């Protein structure tokens, strides 16, 4: 085990896959000479050369289309899109081409493409550069969407995404790049589509993914001191979605809150709430609650931005309301 940042885990995994498989290539804006806007690709151009680490023009539809074509012909392109907001320029390529090819060509071709892209707000990048659009892709059959919260999962899921034969949107988050965690030194091949109970608990389930998991763990540790035992489920993958792990947790705790960075309406929380009522209805003691971003274009001003994004305090408040609504008492743990 080595303690490293999320950023380092991504970098090391890209390097390892470039070394392991000649068909792995990197494409993206400023990933070569400039070493990436977030320095994930630092040193890789020097080590692997411009044939495998390629700077592209500022033309997302063009370079994503090129990557899809390369993938169809046997390469394993890993494309960095500077933020998920810019992926909208390539959404036709992703939704109408990458996600459809395998089915529409009767299985004759696959598109082993990875789109690495960070989402999320909180950096004062204003409304058009702070969005959480992962659910747009998670909606589309033919796509896979993974969203690791820890450096270890970043390594395991990026490895799995690169070796997967379907297009995978690999969601990163600006607020996670500098977070640290233990990462196994050996090769890790994660399983796309499996959620994890990252903290076992008894009284209430918090379901989240990506940055939200970090907040959920912080809140769970805080409330533990108040005698509330919270289980945290990290989805890790939005499509495929591991519904059973979520439902199993709620069947145990009977209370569920979803913490999501995206907007409330039609968001990840809506899908989880529906999943829970389908898979754990008889175990629910109160409606599933959701904590999400304010339904507004994200403001630039720092206090407004902070107020609009879901925080630990918001999660604590909603957990408190849910515990009250189910007449939670500290004696409950014994029953």
């Amino acid at each position, binding site marked *: 085990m080595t303690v490293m940042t999320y950023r380092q885990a991504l970098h090391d995994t890209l390097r390892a896959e470039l070394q392991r498989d000649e068909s792995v290539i990197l494409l993206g804006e400023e990933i070569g000479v400039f070493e990436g806007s977030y320095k994930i690709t630092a040193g890789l151009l020097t080590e692997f050369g411009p044939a495998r680490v390629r700077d592209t023009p500022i033309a997302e539809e063009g370079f994503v289309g090129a990557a899809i074509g390369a993938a169809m012909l046997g390469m394993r392109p890993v494309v960095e899109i500077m933020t998920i907001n810019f992926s909208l320029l390539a959404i036709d390529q992703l939704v109408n081409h990458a996600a459809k090819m395998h089915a529409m060509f009767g299985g004759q071709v696959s598109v082993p493409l990875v789109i690495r892209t960070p989402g999320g707000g909180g950096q004062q990048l204003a409304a058009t550069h702070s969005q959480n659009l992962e659910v747009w892709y998670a909606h589309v059959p033919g796509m896979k969407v993974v969203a690791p919260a820890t450096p270890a999962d970043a390594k395991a899921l990026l490895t799995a995404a690169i070796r997967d034969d379907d297009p995978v949107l690999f969601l990163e988050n600006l607020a996670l790049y500098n977070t640290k965690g233990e990462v196994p030194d050996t090769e890790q091949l994660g399983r796309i589509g499996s959620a994890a109970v990252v903290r076992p608990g008894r009284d209430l389930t918090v379901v989240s993914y990506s940055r939200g998991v970090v907040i959920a763990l912080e809140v769970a540790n805080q409330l533990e001191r*108040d*005698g509330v035992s919270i289980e945290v489920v990290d989805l890790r993958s939005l499509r495929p979605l591991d519904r059973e792990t979520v439902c199993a947790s709620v069947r145990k705790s*009977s209370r569920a809150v979803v913490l999501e960075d995206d*907007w*409330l309406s039609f968001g990840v*929380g809506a899908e989880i*709430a529906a999943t829970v009522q389908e898979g754990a*209805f*008889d*175990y*629910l*003691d*109160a*409606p*599933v*609650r*959701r*904590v*999400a*971003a*304010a*339904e*507004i274009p994200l403001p630039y001003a720092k206090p*407004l931005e902070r*107020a*609009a*994004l*879901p*925080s630990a*305090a*918001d999660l604590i*408040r*909603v957990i*408190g*309301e849910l*515990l*009250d*609504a*189910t*007449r*939670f*008492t*500290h*004696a*409950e743990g014994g*029953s």
Partner: protein
Amino acid sequence: MPEALMPRLSDTMTEGILVQWLKREGDQVSRGDVIAEVETDKATMEVEAYHSGVLTRIIAEPGSVVPIGQPIAVIGDAADADAVPASVNPVVAAAAPQSATAVSAPPGRAAVPATRTSRGTARSPLARSLARKYGLDLSRITGTGPGGRIVRADVEAAVSAQAGTRPAPGTPAPSRSTTRPPATTDSPDDERTPLSSIRRITAQRLAESAAAPHFYLTSVVDAGALLRLRADLNEALAGDGPKVSVTDVLIRACAITLRAHPEVGSSWAGEHIVRHGHVNIGSAVALEDGLIVPVVCDADRKSLAEIATEAHALTGRARAGKLTPGEFTGGTFTISNLGTYGVDHFTAVINPPEAAILAVGTAREEAVVRDGQLSVATTMKLTLTIDHRVLDGATAAAFLRDLVDLLEHPLRIVV
């Protein structure tokens, strides 16, 4: 800012009466400090702080009735004192969030009326499935969730009330007429007394007991030797702890006999019968407005003096409303002694889920025939009430026979 909430201090508790505050606004409190006293349906108990900080605001004044889970005080930083919401309703307080974050709430949540009409009250899915599992009728349960929703806590309270971890019996069985609703004519001379929580629990528990098919066995004990022994003991032990009462002797005698007849110390549990490994004897104590049954645990392993000391202390705490739940739960057999009231003979109502209860009448001089000779003896009538689902006549009769024999040869009680 953390709120101190009305805790659930017993399984049957749905609300508590704030008796007094032991801390004042502005006082520093640490987690675990006793901050207030609360009267539950069973006893007056202490409330501890779950957070450290400053008691910035007292929400529930002494004397107020607060449902469990509702805030009674706010504990925060001293600087927060002015920012405390005035509302005692956490739902309303939450309606003015300090952040703009979107938070889901069921549509129309705020508009849910406190009581519903034709379709009944709301029940959580978990409450419904638990009710199915336990065979409970939810229409007879009061919901304490939002808008009166029945939640798991309510079902579990009803289940434990039914399974009977807390007693309240020992009274004479109600005659048929008293179980009917009272006459409905509204005379201006009639007085309506609202049910106190202890009365409500007592009534509920006794009504549950009526579901068990009972039978009754009565024996007469020649109590002469027993009463002489008790008098001798009290003379010998004078000043050394409380006096040994007839009930104390009976607790010890029943414990010894139960050890020889363990099947009498059983409970009906629906799908099976529980034979208890311990001999825990309860004795009914009359309160001003109900009954409570403090329990002497492992009475078969305690001396008569130990039992007398413990029972005396328990009775005192019961009358003061200071029993802790552990002191009135877990009984395996109950004794109800109305002898001190001059009652000759009565039948007691079983304390569910126990299988039997012993009703003890007064000791009185009677004319008895012994070996064909008429003589005078001090006798006592003992009546055993038995749950026929658990025990049959011969088993219960053997227990009573041995108990009577022990009481008539009481030296074995003290050795």
